[in-house]
């Protein structure tokens, strides 16, 4: 999972403290989105699924996690597919997020 911090760095100016704060906000918000998507899947709540996938997508692109953002985009656009397919999409998103999480939580891994 490649993270591209080019755009983010233009905003932070390379300020490590600010970046670390932004990564933490991203991780907290992303975990929240994921738990709501799980809930949306469990309750077959299409709106909850779609809005949370949309929010997760925006977060991912902004942090430079394009692949994760693309998976969220697909989840948002395919909010009406059967539960089994949604479960597969969620699994992929969770897997991709775990990789991003790993990179962001280990200082020095996102140079």
């Amino acid at each position, binding site marked *: 999972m490649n993270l591209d911090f080019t755009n983010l760095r233009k905003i932070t100016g390379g300020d490590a403290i600010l970046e670390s704060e932004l990564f933490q906000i991203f991780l907290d918000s992303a975990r929240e989105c994921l738990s709501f998507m799980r809930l949306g899947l469990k309750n077959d709540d299409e709106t909850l699924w779609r809005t949370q996938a949309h929010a997760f*997508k925006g977060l991912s692109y*902004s942090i430079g996690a394009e692949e994760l953002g693309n998976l969220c985009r697909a989840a948002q656009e395919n909010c009406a597919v059967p539960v089994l397919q949604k479960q597969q999409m969620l699994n992929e998103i969770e897997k991709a997020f775990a990789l991003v999480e790993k990179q962001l939580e280990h200082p020095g891994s996102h140079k």
Partner: protein
Amino acid sequence: MLIQLVEHRAREALLALIEDINRVQTAVWGMAFLKRRALKPISNDEFLLVLKPAFADVSEAKAFVLENGDIYLAWRGMQKRVHDGLLALVGKALLKASDSGAGSSIVYFDPLVMGNELTTLLRAQAREQGAASEAAAHSSKLAASKNLPKPNATQLHKFQEHRQHRGERRQLEILVVEDQQLLRRLLHEVLRGEHLVDSVAGLQEGCEHYLEKAPDVAFLDIGLADGNGHDLARAIKQLDPDSCVVMVTANNTEEDMEFARGNHADGFVAKPYSKQQIFDYIDRHVSARRLATMRDKFA
């Protein structure tokens, strides 16, 4: 296909329709204005009969015949085709040959700019009813959108004061309405330092803040937790036409762009945006304002 002829209290009905068009977006409606003096004297039945072929493809059409003889035609869907039908049929059958030309006698409102043109009509009526009713009209316009708080007279008064003194500000005041903490923070970081930035998370807060500070530029997210950023953009533009409103969204859809155009938003930025894109909109706004100030000076 249905054509409804509205004559009794036609002006009120027309204004109600315009309010409705502004609320549910203009792009699905088309509207044209016919000058009565250019029409041959004909009965209403004949008039409708001629209109019917032009409206054959639409689900709903209305003809408003106002007391002063003005006629407004409104229809839902397929704007260009209906307009062409009107020109061909109405022009040929009803307009006087002596007129300067059939086409010039039918004023067609472009759906993408219709909000402004028709809102001007509403404002003219509000002015007729005096300053008090104008404030009430502003207030109701701002509150017409779902989830937007209705401003009171004090808020409106304060807002107008701030608005009048915008030119005296040393720094631009910028409002960011974004419900995602990360994205709010990012935009705040982009803007802070050079400008005074206030960031809020929701539609209601955004509305209250706008009334309180009359910021120079507002960056609005579309999918907010407590409502739709398009609603706030529309309300801001109706209350404050000189404002600079930029929509910011992760949904880069044609529909959203059309909504933004319909609301006369000044810009549309897709996430993830670059710092430069944001600055470009601000620079554009500053240049436009300078130009307006110069124009006022020389006028």
